[in-house]
């Protein structure tokens, strides 16, 4: 067993020496530094949490609207289901996701959301890319199209773009891009 028995007689100054005090000061500095870095990490993590909250708010709104949008007197006519857009429909044409999105951003609380990484409203992206730092806090909304029985994957995911039709009961997946640019899945839901 290692022991320092042999060294006890070396020093007669039993109180903390100048070196000891310097070491203690250094230790305090280390603790302060790690705490500060921990706080930096925590603040960054809070931004990710805020992005997740943004995503959760979108999921909540879309899920709730999804239950009533096929009814005749739906509160949000721009997002009404069963309205088939034309084949060459533009972004804001009735029955498209673009029209519904414009309605949401104009009339609901979701318009006030802030992307905590850039202090700007969050934008919708096609994919979260780790190498692209501008995508932090962005929202990725994907339409999950079921594949034919026997396929290797149960569905194919593609970004819901503004010209896409929303006339049918849709299976959506919402994710947000985190600090590293990776997607964090918030939820899969029906709209």
């Amino acid at each position, binding site marked *: 067993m290692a*022991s320092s*028995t042999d060294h006890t007689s070396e020093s007669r100054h039993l109180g903390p020496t100048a070196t000891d005090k310097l070491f203690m000061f250094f230790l305090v500095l*280390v603790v302060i530094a790690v705490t500060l870095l921990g706080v*930096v990490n925590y603040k960054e993590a*809070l931004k990710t949490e805020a992005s997740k909250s943004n995503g959760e708010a979108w999921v909540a709104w879309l899920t709730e609207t999804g239950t009533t949008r096929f009814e005749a007197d739906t509160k949000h006519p721009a997002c009404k289901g069963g309205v088939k857009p034309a084949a060459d429909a533009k972004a804001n044409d009735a029955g498209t996701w673009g029209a519904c999105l414009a309605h949401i951003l104009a009339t609901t609380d979701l318009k006030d959301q802030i992307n905590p990484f850039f202090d700007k409203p969050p934008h919708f992206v096609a994919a979260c890319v780790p190498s692209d730092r501008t995508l932090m806090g962005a929202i990725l909304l994907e339409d999950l199209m079921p594949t034919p029985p026997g396929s290797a994957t149960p569905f194919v995911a593609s970004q819901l773009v503004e010209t896409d039709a929303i006339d049918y009961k849709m299976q959506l997946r919402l994710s947000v891009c985190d600090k590293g640019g990776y997607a964090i899945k918030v939820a899969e839901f029906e709209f």
Partner: protein
Amino acid sequence: MDKSRDNFLKDINVESILGHDQEAQIDRNLPMRKWLYSWLLDPHIPGNFQKDLDKWISYLIIGNLFSLMFEHVPAVFEPNKTWFEFFDIFSVAVFTIEYALRFYLAPEDEEFKHRKHARFGFISSPFAIIDFLAVAPFYLKAFIPIDLRILRFLRLLRILKLFRVLIPALAEFKELNKDRTFRQKVHALVFPSNYGGTMQHIFEVFIGVWVILSVMAVILESVKSINYILHLQFVILDAVAVAIFTVEYFMRIYACVEEPGYKGAFLGRFRQAKNPSTFIDFLAILPFFLEVFLHHLIDLRFLRVFRLARLLKLTRGSDATAVLVKVVVREWPVMGAATFIMMLLLVLTASLGYLFEYDAQPEKFENIPTSIYWAVITLASVGYGDISPVTPMGRAMTSVLALLGIGIFAIPAALLASAFSDELVKERDQLKANLFAILKDGNISDAEAEMIRSEAKRLHLTVEEVNKLIEVVVKEHELEERNPLPIHKIAENPALAVEHYKVLLGQIRQLGVQTDEAQFEAAAQQGARLSSKELDLWHKIQGKA
């Protein structure tokens, strides 16, 4: 075995030497309160339940801390609310019983028994106040509506109960390190030594718990559903773990100069920093700092996996790991040779595979490096089957190589196993030799008991195994006594030769005293049994010349 030897063996209490649990010697006829105190709370009776009680109460306090932490996570708390409440009720019940027990047994406690009102002395003592504060909010909320946050803060006070274990350990540490410098005290805390006591053990357990917690956090972080809920908690936990490990790292670097072999303010510390276990400590904290400082330059997410290196911190002080490292270092040349043969076979197999299979499957056996993957999988008997030979020559070669692979890949494993076993036998022989020396005087001193204890712990020997070793050693002592050393062995050592000569002279004198002088002379002269010179020598030894 003679009677004295029986006593000698009987006197050795291996269990007490090894520090194993022994049954407490408590008189059944003691008054109830005294009897209960002796079993449950008396810290001076070895073998009673006092240590176990403290240990389990400590676990419950730590459990409460975790429960409190998870209560702040709605996703965890809400679905398991009932379980959290049950745990809280259980904890309060245990803490209340503990408090009531200490209150009832206070008149038996050394600290309070001499006071006029022992129980009042108990309830006004700092420990009892902490114990009271740990349970009071639970009962208070039944009568007074208390804000949940205040209630949770008050429950946090339960952690103060740990002082019941910490303060005696701290007092022992102070006592052990009286008249020692600050650096020596730091050394005693972080390195195993005779000065560490319980405090050093607590420090090691504390670091071990944080290693396990942080490694569990790294593993759970990879589960997306869990990370989604507990991301913030993981970030906090990592920062706290890094702070603890960083302080520990610098304490080790600072105090290492007190270790034998690490003297020198700079060189000693540099040697310590290069030490594998300290390097592991460094690796355990490095990813955190790199990620904080460099995350905006490159994606350092992969570094998080390196936090798992913290698990290696647990191998510090593990004797089994030390033996394994020793064995690998010792067997390195042989292992190197086996590895060389393995590599040779691997390249040869890959080349032949490429030669025979390329024409038939150019997409699978594209080149020799690709074939090396197939060769490794085949030789190691894994056989995924994603690449397999189709030509007759390829298949024939694979059959031979698969059989060869079993032997070739088994060599390093067999070498290691055999060397490991040899090392253990050698270390046990060393312990046996030490026991032989220790038992020579029939007495085991405290230092010798400590040596046996640490060696038995290091070699993972049970009480029965140490008993057997001692029996073997005692038998060897007996044999040594019955069969004295051969004359040529005695002749090798002049001091021993002189002693032997004195013994022989003594025996001759004893013979002269006990035999009849006249009859001896007559017998010696009869038939010239002794020459005149031999007889003169006899007379000289008997002092009659």
